[in-house]
């Protein structure tokens, strides 16, 4: 029983890291990233492949974070000149391009067969203790990232990023060039997503391209909007709401007779779609909160 809640907790914290990353990009700086899952996938596969090749986990995690961050550089540069909807579709296209590439380059990633046997973090402690330890580690890490985000938001840099998000041309008319900052924040958010991906891979121990569909990106978006974008509280709260939704749907399947697993996936997709529509219609504050300090 406890093991179940620990598992839920771990996945929640992974989503929390994703949400915190997106919150930096969109909540603070208004960069519309519809390609989060790409960096999640890059982090997952990087760490998994390195670990399976014998690299110590600490190194593989760091590499995963760095590689995901650097993969954001070309996209970040693209973002400099684009209006938000173009950036959105471009990042969406990027994430699909990454997924297809992972799927096709079987020599590296084993394609649709996936990578089994990814070593767990703290494997030496035995299965249940390993998960407990992982939960504690993730909790500490998420708290650290949350703290860092709050400090960032309240700093002069945070003020600048909020100004960029509010009205970039007006800021440029004051002599500031937002370029460097937008790219930095994009890479930072991507690195966080990569780190989350590494944790994910080493928790579920098997990854394949179908786990990295755009749906994951929009799970994170949905959570962030429901919780309230622009605040750390909102990002964390959204991750919790998201977990309740995902786990809840699992239980519903057990209660409704005659619904197969496949159909359940459709129901979940419908729920996300409906949630996105309803939230944009009836909770605009979820997307556009005004003042945000924490």
């Amino acid at each position: 029983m406890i093991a179940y809640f620990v598992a839920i907790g771990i996945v929640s914290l992974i989503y929390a890291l994703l949400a915190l990353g997106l919150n930096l990009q969109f909540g603070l700086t208004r960069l519309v990233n519809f390609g989060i899952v790409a960096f999640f996938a890059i982090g997952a596969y990087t760490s998994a492949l390195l670990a399976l090749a014998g690299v110590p986990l600490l190194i593989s995690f760091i590499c995963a974070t760095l590689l995901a961050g650097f993969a954001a550089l070309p996209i970040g540069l693209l973002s400099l000149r684009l209006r938000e909807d173009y950036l959105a579709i471009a990042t969406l296209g990027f994430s699909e391009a990454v997924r297809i590439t992972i799927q096709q380059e079987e020599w590296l990633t084993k394609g649709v067969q996936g990578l089994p046997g990814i070593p767990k973090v703290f494997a030496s402690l035995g299965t249940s203790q390993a998960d407990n330890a992982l939960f504690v580690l993730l909790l500490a890490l998420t708290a650290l990232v949350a703290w860092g985000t709050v400090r960032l938001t309240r700093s002069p840099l945070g003020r600048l990023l909020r100004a960029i998000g509010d009205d970039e041309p007006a800021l440029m008319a004051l002599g500031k060039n937002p370029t460097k900052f937008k790219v930095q924040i994009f890479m930072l958010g991507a690195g966080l997503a990569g780190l989350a991906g590494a944790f994910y891979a080493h928790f579920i121990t098997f990854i394949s391209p179908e786990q990295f569909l755009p749906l994951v990106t929009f799970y994170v978006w949905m959570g962030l909007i429901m919780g309230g974008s622009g605040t750390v509280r909102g990002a964390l709260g959204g991750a919790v709401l998201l977990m309740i939704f995902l786990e809840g749907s699992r239980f519903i399947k057990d209660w409704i007779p005659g619904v197969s697993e496949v159909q359940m996936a459709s129901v979940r997709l419908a729920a996300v779609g409906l949630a996105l529509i309803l939230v944009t219609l009836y909770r605009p504050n979820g997307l556009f909160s005004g003042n945000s300090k924490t």
Partner: protein
Amino acid sequence: MIQFLNLLINGVIEGLVVALPALAMTLVMGVNRFPNAATGDLMTTGAYTAVILQALGVSSLLGATVLAALGTAIISVISYELIFKKLARQPMIASLLAAIGLGFLLRSVISFFAGHDQRNFKLPLVRAWNFDGVRILPSDLNIAAAALVCLLLVFFLLYKTSFGRQLRAVSDNPDLARASGIRARSLMIGLWLLVGMISAIGGVLLGMKAVVMPELGWDHLIPAFAAMVLGGIGSPVGAVLGALIMCVAQELSVPLLGPSYKLVLSFGVLALVLLIRPSGLMGRTELVR
């Protein structure tokens, strides 16, 4: 050389079909000023409606397509009335997210009831014509012809009727159009009906060319968007040109990259255009930056 011709022909045929969703997207982009990310799933809706009607006994493929187009058109208008009209005053990202959500909703309903298996239209078996190695499937020619006819009808609508003139006026200059008293409501409904219809027809044609599956439209969303950007936002001619160029480029890339990388290539084209010449071939820069 022969392989080049084969790829070229295939690219042109596919380009004519992809021109339909690209056109649908560029019209909405020009008038409502947001990328309708549900376009792909509207295509899927059209394809499934037609293929199921055919399976249920509607003998005329044309009839099934017409019904599918009408049904999808109605869904499209409903989506405008219930969702996008209300989001018009909000920042565009709201409409974009809602469109993604709508697409998910459509796709989930389809996959829930119709399953994930691939379906095929019942088409007469044909043999490819062979001109010294250059192969053309008559069915593909029919598809291309159908797409062309559809495109010509839309262009007639856009350039020879007052509805089309008003649509283009609103697209070019919304403030001026409002001031000159163009009846916005009926124009919008007409637009969204049109968008639904051409998306549905595009979906049916794609389904005929290959298979019908839930990801049919979604897989063509990025290529359609890339075609629109390449051709220039808001330019109907641009959308068709962009689709043709892009699909030919996709086909020509197959010997180098393999068939599975087509979508990656379309993303590459998109990124390149956005970096070098965001206004595309025929569009205006103000809409991009």
